[in-house]
């Protein structure tokens, strides 16, 4: 069975290689090839999954070593895979959602002449992401980590003829790079601390290591997670990443890649458990991001950017849960999986809407679309209900658990985190209801575009609706399937450990409060967007609204602090270099030159001068000899 693991990665990798190197002759079958290979990978994952659940809880982890990658003395890096329950969950999510989105893309990208290349990139992403979650050591994980970064860059900038897309790709790449530096430093620290970077030895050795080092490693891992998962302060790239084709947004920037940070933290749980400071920082980052993303989501008129804010916010929930330790790991992953379903569904729905609306993304120019695209409306609506945590749907089970766990963090910290998660739930309900109302309800507000083309909203082809329907099923039932009877928690328990959270207030009270906040958010949104007509041109809005439209000034902050600061830093460094370093160097050179100029005068070319030196030297020699004899 272990031998199948490599095939998981190999199938999409083969697809990427063939599609990217195959040239034009594959244009006609390229998308099918990519989809079949992705589905093949999913099938292999399913076979492995069936095999896994057939075994006892403790024997489920599989391990496969392909070959020694970098065998240098004590530096031993292997290409080796580890398939345990956590990896299995990710494999199924990645290949499952990935396959659905491949199918969706067949329809969505039908008119794009570079569709083959798009599928090549998608397969490349799948391979890298699978490598990331299957790696049995941090170095190979890093390889996959960079691979998904590359795929993300290529796919965000897929429509590179648009300057905004090219810039967004560059931005995502650069911001991710900051996080990647964190990961590489963490790996280096691990190697110096533990002498290895394989998961097993590193995570077992955390008990015997100083807390300071573990905190440093944890914070570096968190930096990496922030970069990849768009958490504050490295969140700025995600909104712009929506320039990519919508399937990409659904697969990479909602369901899978952006959750790699959560995977990293959960995988490294032992390190964080032994470093409470790092854990605290993780929860703070999660709490801040979940509110940040929610506030941004409330203000955006671009449907994909609103969803991107939502993604950021939901990943904030996951990061927060992962920072809570054993009471939160399983819930973080559970929310990750359910979020993968409903957020991918929502993005696909948004893509379907755009597909019918001549690629219009401004929700103020939608309105009343439920009549024109019923399937999209229903699947999107189910995803919406799941996301806001409507009782009985996926989001309810997973998010409610996170809120409980946040309250259970203990002390003031618990209260603050709990309040943040509750507030986030309310905001989620508000902005998602807003999206829903602006898109599918109310009057139709679309207008001819610049070329005079009146949009003719229509339902998307079945290759696009079928994946949406499948994901809608997931959105509805996954949470219940996982949550009832702690099925998911028990499944993950051997890998992530688990402790039942014990919040200071009883669980039904928390659930009730959550539902109340949720209804409050929905009501507020209905009052503002359901009752009143929506202006096509956005009103000026309050100061907070305007700030939120500008992504809470994240880019302005980056510009002022990082760009300007960097410019000042480089300018002062240049000044220092010119005046200080060059001054010292040139000064030394000038001093040596001057001294040599003086010394050169001794070399006047006159034999008599040299003779004097010799004569003086002889005198000194005699003096020394006599002195030695005297002594």
């Amino acid at each position, binding site marked *: 069975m272990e031998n199948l693991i490599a095939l998981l990665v190999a199938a999409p990798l083969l697809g990427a290689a063939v599609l990217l190197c195959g040239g034009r002759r594959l244009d006609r079958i390229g998308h099918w090839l990519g989809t079949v290979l992705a589905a093949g990978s999913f099938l292999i994952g399913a076979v492995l999954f069936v095999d896994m659940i057939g075994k006892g809880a403790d024997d489920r982890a599989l391990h496969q070593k392909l070959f020694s990658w970098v065998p240098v003395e004590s530096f031993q890096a292997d290409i080796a895979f580890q398939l345990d329950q956590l990896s299995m969950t990710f494999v199924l999510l990645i290949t499952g959602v990935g396959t659905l989105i491949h199918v969706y893309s067949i329809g969505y990208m039908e008119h794009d002449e570079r569709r083959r290349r798009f599928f090549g990139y998608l397969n490349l992403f799948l391979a890298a992401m699978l490598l990331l979650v299957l790696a049995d050591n941090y170095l190979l994980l890093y390889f996959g980590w960079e691979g998904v970064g590359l795929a993300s860059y290529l796919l965000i900038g897929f429509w590179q003829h648009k300057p905004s897309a090219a810039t967004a790709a560059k931005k995502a790449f650069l911001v991710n790079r900051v996080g990647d530096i964190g990961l590489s430093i963490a790996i280096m620290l691990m190697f110096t601390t533990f002498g290895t970077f394989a998961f097993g030895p590193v995570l077992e050795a955390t008990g015997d290591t100083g807390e300071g080092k573990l905190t440093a490693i944890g914070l570096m891992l968190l930096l990496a997670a922030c970069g990849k998962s768009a958490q504050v302060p490295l969140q700025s790239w995600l909104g712009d990443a929506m320039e990519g084709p919508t399937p990409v947004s659904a697969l990479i920037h909602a369901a899978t890649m952006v959750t790699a940070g959560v995977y990293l933290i959960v995988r490294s749980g032992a390190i964080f458990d032994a470093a409470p400071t790092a854990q605290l920082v993780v929860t703070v980052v999660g709490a801040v991001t979940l509110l940040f993303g929610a506030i941004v989501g409330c203000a955006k008129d671009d449907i994909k950017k609103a969803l991107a804010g939502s993604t950021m916010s939901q990943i904030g929930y996951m990061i927060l849960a992962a920072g809570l330790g054993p009471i939160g790991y399983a819930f973080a992953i559970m929310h990750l999986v359910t979020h993968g379903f409903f957020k991918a569904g929502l993005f696909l729905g948004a893509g379907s809407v755009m597909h019918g609306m001549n690629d219009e993304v401004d929700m103020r120019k939608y309105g009343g679309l439920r009549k024109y695209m019923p399937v999209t409306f229903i699947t999107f609506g189910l995803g919406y209900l799941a996301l806001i945590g409507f009782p009985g749907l996926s989001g309810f089970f997973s998010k409610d658990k996170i809120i409980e766990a946040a309250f259970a963090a203990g002390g003031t910290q618990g209260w603050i985190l709990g309040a943040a998660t509750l507030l986030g739930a309310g905001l989620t309900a508000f902005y998602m209801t807003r999206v829903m109302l602006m898109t599918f309800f109310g009057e139709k507000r679309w207008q001819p575009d610049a070329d005079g083309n009146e949009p003719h909203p229509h339902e998307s082809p079945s290759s696009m609706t079928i994946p949406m329907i499948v994901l809608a099923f997931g959105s509805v039932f996954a949470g219940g399937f996982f949550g009832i009877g702690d099925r998911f928690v028990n499944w993950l328990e051997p890998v992530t450990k688990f402790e039942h959270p014990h919040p200071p207030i009883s669980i039904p009270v928390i659930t009730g409060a959550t539902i109340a906040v949720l209804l409050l958010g929905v009501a507020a949104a209905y009052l503002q967007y359901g009752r009143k007509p929506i202006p096509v041109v956005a009103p000026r809005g309050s100061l907070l609204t305007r700030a939120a439209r500008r992504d809470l000034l994240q880019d302005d902050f980056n510009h002022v602090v990082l760009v300007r600061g960097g410019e000042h830093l480089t300018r002062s460094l240049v000044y220092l270099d010119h005046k200080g370093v060059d001054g010292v160097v040139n000064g030394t050179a000038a001093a040596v030159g001057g001294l040599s100029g003086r010394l050169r005068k001794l*070399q*006047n*070319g*006159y*034999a*008599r001068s*040299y*003779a004097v030196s010799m004569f003086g030297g002889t005198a000194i020699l005699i003096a020394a000899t006599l002195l030695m004899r005297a002594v």
Partner: protein
Amino acid sequence: MNPVNYLYLASLLFTIGAAGVLIRRNAIVVFMCVELMLNACNLALVTFSRMHGNLDGQIIAFFTMVVAAAEVVVGLAIIVSLFRSRHSASVDDASLMKL
């Protein structure tokens, strides 16, 4: 009188010769001063011979004279050819060692 006085005389002559080498510019005079230094050495050697009561010192002095003769021959030839090409016998004129 102690014959060691010959040694004092020899060192005096040697020093005068050396100073002459350093002070004079005319190559011929410089050369003469070198000869003076050699002679001073010879005097010292002869005195040493007397001091030790054997003839080895005189032998060395004899060899010094032979070598000096050879040196004079070659040295004067150099001076002559220098004079021929430069019309000067000043050692300072040949300051080509300077870069």
